[in-house]
């Protein structure tokens, strides 16, 4: 697709497509969301996104919300997300209020246990019970070992691109794959782009197999 035809083209989605991303500080949640948002813009769609900034919060929960289509506010109504991308298993549970029985959900199976668990002031639930609960509630669920796949692709840091690839492969995702790839190239460092593209493709195949 030529650059010109991607831009300025007046496209309208019939419905607003709503994506929630949730992860832990340092996992690249905001970067992943921005890639999707810019790709949607390239397609000529309206897009709004909300991201968290604030205090130095390495290790804190990071939530971003995207609405693609004719929306004004970037915040997703409870139970209204079409797609949830959870970068960590328990974080998927934290976003349960945003999804419904028809939502597509991508969950990274690799847990990140916070220091509060070591300190004994909070608990990390058994992973199997986390997955059981997700399976019981969500029919369109893909649990993906993004960490392992990212390692295969060449770097554990590409975990977020594995999840992005998986998300793009879900039915109804409103932005074409090649536009997302173009957006990745515009947003990620040149030296790691090969690894990231590989991670993205492996993630894509994980859902499209």
């Amino acid at each position, binding site marked *: 697709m030529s650059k010109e035809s991607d831009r300025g083209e007046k496209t309208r989605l019939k419905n607003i497509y709503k994506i929630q991303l949730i992860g832990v500080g340092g996992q690249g949640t905001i970067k992943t969301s921005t890639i999707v948002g810019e790709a949607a813009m390239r397609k000529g769609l309206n897009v709004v996104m909300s991201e968290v900034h604030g*205090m130095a919060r390495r290790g804190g929960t990071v939530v971003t919300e995207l609405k693609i289509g004719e929306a004004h506010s970037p915040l997703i109504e409870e139970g209204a997300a079409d797609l949830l991308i959870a970068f960590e298993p328990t974080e998927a549970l934290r976003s349960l209020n945003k999804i419904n029985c028809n939502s597509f959900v991508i969950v990274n199976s690799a847990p990140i246990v*916070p220091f509060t668990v070591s300190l004994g002031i909070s608990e990390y639930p058994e992973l199997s019970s986390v997955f059981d609960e997700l399976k019981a509630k969500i029919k369109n669920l893909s649990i993906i070992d993004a960490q392992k796949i990212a390692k295969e692709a060449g770097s554990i840091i590409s975990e977020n691109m594995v999840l992005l690839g998986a998300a793009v492969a879900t039915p109804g995702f409103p932005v074409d794959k090649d536009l997302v790839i173009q957006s990745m190239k515009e947003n990620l460092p040149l030296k790691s782009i090969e690894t990231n593209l590989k991670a993205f493709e492996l993630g894509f195949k994980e859902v499209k197999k």
Partner: protein
Amino acid sequence: MKVKEILTEKEGEKLFLLGNEAAVRGALEGGVSVVSTYPGTPSSEIGNVFYKIAREAGVYFEFSSNEKVALEVSVAAAAAGLRSFVFMKHVGLNVAADSFMSAVYTGVRGGMIVLSADDPSMYSSQNEQDNRIMARLAGIPLLEPSNPQEVKDLMKFGFDLSEQFKIPILIRTTTRISHMRGVVNLGTVIQGKEKGYFKKDPSQFIVTPVYVVKMRKELIEKLKQIEEKTEKSPLNKIIDKGGREIGIITSGSAFNYVMDVVSENNLKVKILKLTFSYPFPEKLVLDFINSVDNILVAEEVEPVMEKEVLAIIGKYNIKKKVYGKLDGTLPRIYEYNPDIISFGMAKIVEKELIKREKYSTKLSLPLRSAILCPGCPHRATYFALKKAIKKLKLKEEEIIYSTDIGCYALGMEPPYNMGDYCISMGSSIGIGCGFSKATNQKVISFIGDSTFFHAGIPPLINAVHNKDKILLVVMDNRITGMTGGQTNPGIPLDGMGNPAPEVSIEKIARGIGVGLVKTTDPVDLKETEEVFKEALQFEGIAVVITKHPCAMITDGENRKKGISIKYTINQEECTKCLICVKNFTCPAIYIEKDGSVNINPLLCDGCGVCAQICPKKAIEVKKQG
């Protein structure tokens, strides 16, 4: 998108911009010459972008020592005929308020915009103040954008308006606007004038009673003229969905939620969006009130417009119901969202609104509290101080820890529990002075380097002069850390990345006459503990500067040099005493399911402090590169 594109992308193109980034582009399209700030979330990214592009853009930019100074820099530039832009978080305007109030009286010659980023729900702030009230207190025209496109467009509009009426303009964003991304259509970047010239006129720029009496009258006259503008401004628009049962008056983020709820439920309402919202357009609102049966006011945070609407209703003796915060239709506190607006509107419209099933979990989820980063030098400072206190057999519960605004306030969390009082920038020292006089308890105050420059020096002078007994720990991590890493007067770089004189905290303390001043590297735990022991026994005011770069800096430098230093735990030596986990609490150190203690190599920063605290010397370094 690359940051540079905010400057270089051409007219007619689109960028997916953060509200804060859009403010930068808007300033550039408005031909800004001078930009100043003190970093504060949710406004910080505006400064981060200017830091990267100001030189290339031919704009002067600085991180001033505090918001009052920042405002003064910009207001002087505007008095000299240049266009200027000063921005800050909402509470920053309190610091700037003294000059802000008078600058509205004196007025400006070049266009000047003051942007205040309010923080409903207090995601990273100490209060929820609504600076639309500040606009009314000062008598400054107010613009309230609802999305990044509007942020950008209002900057340019604001400059023109400011020059037309020779008055600064206030733009009020909220966290959800500053940190919202949206598609922004770009206009042309205009190069601002490089230098202005200040034509003297004491009757305009000296606020002695003789002159301000006249200025006050002029200000009220200006506001009257500007009100005529707000009455007719296309920025204040009516969206008619074809019904008159409810008329909704709204602004800012609340407008977005109203629109989404109205669209989704196909509600037949009439909406008045006020973007140019002060001086309040009385006639426009009166006409709107007359065109509907009842009114809902949707706004964040205080019932500011709601009271204006009630005043109009009272003035014209209208019998209509006003729904909003005051009658409980919408909540008085915290940020809104589509669900809150929907819940409120469901109470007053005839129609059944969409309600969705809502999942929840019964599993208890792990707490991801904010914590000092791995490699953070503040952790070492707290650890060493705690040890010194223990060695001197001081009773910890008898010590008052007066802390300040910065990452180090996290020292209040377990296991350190070193934070008892914190109310504002620089308050650690003034509060310390008060406790030192009011009690016989030992007072330890904590302040960061940037906060010290911002508001720490006058109270330190006070402490010396009034012979207060305080141990002041200046945690100098060579950066303004919590807001994402900006330069400050203690760093040899200015706001544009040019070399700059480094202001010495140690020399300031000595110059003021502090009895004991010591600088130590907190990562050297032993030395730091000794310094603290001496300072804790000093009679009078002692200042200890714990100086070590923020982990964000060391991480970046190591990455550039290709150095990777990681620590590991020798499992044969480890006795699982858990001092590193429970007493030191570095988030990189964790307990495995089998009970063994490990270091996560992805998180380890290589500071090596844990190796110093391990009684069995079981923590070893692994160096690469």
